[in-house]
């Protein structure tokens, strides 16, 4: 079943085009990484999906129009926004009580179980918690909701590596069950790469690339090439080349692994490497088009 379906999604802020006709389709049970530079339109796209901002074009999330039916939609959708948004005056026990009070699909015992595994005390206020603990609290609340779609917008920004790892581990182990859908944006791409089932690149309000991670991994290969083999490698038409420590790293799209093996050390590239390659190519292409 389709979880998110958008056609010709547009959003402008004055003269700035945040979303420039986005077509998007996310099936249920996927973990989609939305990758893009600052100002690419990631947050705007998520805000439209969550009913936080009006838009032009067609958008259906779990069959709802998010802008006009946000409150119904939020029975099935959870989100953690880019920074800690839990109010500082809120007591931990009150936060649990409130969500239990308003959310028909919240499992209070589950949330309290998650919290018991942390150092968060029930009668603490949010202002007394560290940034990592606030995120743990928010995640405990969200994971105890039996939602069909979870949206995470830079959920681990500003957290140290231990908390970040823990965050994605508990998300995978305690939450994801292959029927739920997760959409995540993050700048720490390497940390989510192993978690994702799908990846989507967004740049200047447009989706420039989308792929399942299986395809992605079989399609792109990265080879570290010594200078003497560089011309041979270049003959195979790499899509991107960058120097590193006296050697060159070449990125190939749909080139046979056997052929590359002779040129140097072959490995699966990081999402970020492919993203950078694609972005610099597309900006060259854009310049070429204007000339």
């Amino acid at each position, binding site marked *: 079943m389709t979880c998110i379906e958008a056609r010709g999604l547009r959003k402008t802020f004055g003269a700035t085009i945040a979303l420039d006709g986005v077509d998007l389709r996310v099936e249920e049970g996927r973990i989609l990484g939305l990758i893009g530079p600052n100002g690419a339109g990631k947050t705007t796209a998520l805000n439209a999906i969550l009913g936080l901002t009006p838009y032009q074009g067609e958008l259906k999330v779990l069959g709802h129009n998010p802008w006009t039916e*946000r*409150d119904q939609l939020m029975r099935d959708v959870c989100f953690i926004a880019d920074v800690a*948004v*839990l*109010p500082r005056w809120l*007591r931990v026990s009150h936060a649990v009580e409130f969500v239990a009070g308003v959310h028909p699909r919240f499992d209070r015992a589950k949330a309290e179980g998650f919290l018991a595994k942390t150092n968060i005390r029930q009668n603490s206020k949010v202002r007394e918690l560290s940034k990592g603990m606030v995120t743990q609290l928010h995640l405990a609340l969200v994971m105890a909701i039996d939602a069909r779609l979870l949206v995470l917008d830079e959920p681990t920004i500003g957290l140290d590596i231990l908390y970040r790892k823990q965050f994605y581990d508990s998300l995978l182990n305690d939450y994801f069950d292959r029927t739920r859908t997760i959409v995540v944006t993050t700048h720490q791409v390497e940390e989510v790469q192993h978690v994702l089932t799908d990846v989507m690149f967004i740049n200047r309000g447009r989706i420039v690339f989308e792929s399942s991670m299986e395809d992605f991994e079989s399609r792109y290969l990265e080879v570290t090439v010594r200078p003497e083999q560089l011309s041979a490698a270049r003959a195979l038409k790499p899509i991107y080349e960058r120097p590193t420590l006296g050697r060159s790293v070449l990125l190939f799209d749909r080139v046979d692994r056997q052929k590359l093996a002779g040129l140097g050390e072959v490995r699966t590239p990081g999402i970020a490497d492919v993203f950078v390659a694609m972005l610099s190519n597309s900006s060259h292409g854009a310049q070429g088009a204007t000339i």
Partner: protein
Amino acid sequence: MNTPSNAVPESFADSKVVTSPVLLDTRPFYWSVRRELWEYRSVYLAPLAIAGVILFGFLVVLFHLPHTMRYAMTLGAEKQRDTIAEHFNIAAALIMGTAFIVSIFYSLDTLYGERRDRSILFWKSLPVSDLTTVLAKATVPLVILPIFAFVITLATETVMLLLGSAVLAASGLSVATYWSQLQLYPTMMMLLYHLVTVHMLWYAPLYAWLLLVSAWARRAPFLWAVLPPLAVGIFERTAFHTMYFAALMHYRFSGGREAADSMQGNFPLNPGMHLTPGAFLATPGLWIGLALAAVFLFAAARVRRYREPI
């Protein structure tokens, strides 16, 4: 032939499933009100603090109470009552005034504050509609604060009455006269009437306007709430040399009592006061005000939908 007979109960069952959560589920509203009281503890702490100060002050009054009673006995009936009831009236006025001030500041801050601290993103991530949220917030100045003011006044004045009675009895003065002159509980009913007619109903558009500004303003909600009406008044005065708008504002702030009871200008807690609920309900100003309040609240809910953190 089977299909139509099957279709009817099915569609009936469907519509029941769809409508019942909307109509019957008041839990989001209830919890939204609770959450306001968690956030704005001054809603009950401020009137309680004032009540504490009043009771403390009354301890000083108690020293002079026998003397005051003896003096009051020499006065005429009307004066006698005013003298005896003076501290009770001041207590009621202080608690009510505190509740009113808290109402004003609460209404101006609540929808602005949730955007300032970005928590609006958390509240909007839960299945609570903007209208439910705005109505829950409007409940605080329109219902909760008047009720708190009443209950706290009732409790404070009951304690004052008991303390006063004990002191008078100890000095051999008539407690019966004290009680009959005070008429505390009839007076409390007057206070309740005043709170319902003026603070809940007549001032409703005032609070609703403040909530709307609070939902709308990107900064300085207080200035946005006060300056536009002031500007309209000044513009009218300079352009047309009239003061209809100023008169309208004055009517809104003071007009409720003129309709609600016959005692104009005095403190509304005289048991001899003549209540005119019929005249009050027949005042067009009341209904225009309530309609305006409804418009402001719907607009506030609408605006909240568009607003992002600031």
